[in-house]
């Protein structure tokens, strides 16, 4: 049995909180990309811009907070001194921590897109930035799950 499968039982709840937050974050970020893409042109652009903005505030942001809080919680259990942290953990934080800035930018751009009635540069920027961050989350997921040495 691989050694990484054996973990103290008091790590389970923080791990669950982290993984659940990450899953909701990825799913809601994908929904945001689809809504933002739809808000760029065609019918109902204003509606989709509003729903994209609302999803960012009501689902993406809370999921990010739960994911990041869970990450800090499990890290405090697994590496209490902060020493000898493996590289895959660094990849996770390298993606998660700039996420605060990414979300702030998405909120501002989403609000501007709503004010513009959808379409325009703000909607395009939300689509591109959310899409790129979704890819970054995929890279973090690879590092956290496969833990390549």
């Amino acid at each position: 049995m691989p050694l990484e499968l054996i973990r103290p039982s008091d790590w389970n709840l923080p791990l669950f909180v982290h993984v659940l937050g990450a899953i909701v974050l990825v799913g809601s970020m994908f929904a945001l990309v689809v809504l933002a893409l739809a808000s760029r042109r065609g019918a109902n652009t204003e509606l989709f811009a509003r729903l994209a903005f609302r999803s960012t505030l009501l689902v993406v942001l809370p999921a990010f907070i739960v994911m990041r809080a869970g990450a800090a919680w499990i890290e405090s259990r697994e590496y209490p001194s902060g020493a000898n942290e493996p590289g895959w953990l660094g990849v996770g934080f390298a993606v998660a921590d700039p996420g605060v800035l990414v979300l702030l930018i998405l909120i501002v751009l989403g609000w501007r897109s709503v004010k513009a009635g959808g379409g325009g540069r703000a909607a395009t920027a939300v689509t591109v930035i959310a899409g790129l961050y979704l890819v970054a989350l995929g890279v973090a997921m690879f590092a956290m799950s496969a833990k390549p040495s």
Partner: protein
Amino acid sequence: MTTYGWLLFLHITGAFLFLGGAVAAAVFNVSAQTRERPSEVAALMRMTQVVVPIVGLGSIMTLVFGLWLVHDVGYGYGDGWIVAAIILWAVAAGLGGAGGKRERETRVLAERLAAEGDSPSSELRARMRDPATIAMSYGAGIALLVVLVLMIWKPGAG
């Protein structure tokens, strides 16, 4: 990278596609429930259709690579937490499939109403708030959440 590392990555990727896809579908469905105009409901429900293949791929990946992991790690296929997870996986897939079929029918109705004047309809409103469809969607979500709990706590695993 070890075989275990690859299998775990593919299993977890499947879980993210399966559960993450379900979250995305929930965002579109809940958004659709707040709308009255059939064209808006139809547009949001078409977005749910985009997620269906992602959820399907994720469900297959979780099962295939999960069973492969059981073999690779040396767990027993008859272990209680594994049997419970497989049963709940099937329950989630069944409920999700049945709920999805009803939602497709609602989307077809919304598209027809949109083409016939796009006026709010009590029939569409009733379909959007159909308790059986909502129960199926929430039931599938709860089953997947319990599977996630089982995968992390692994009760009874040696």
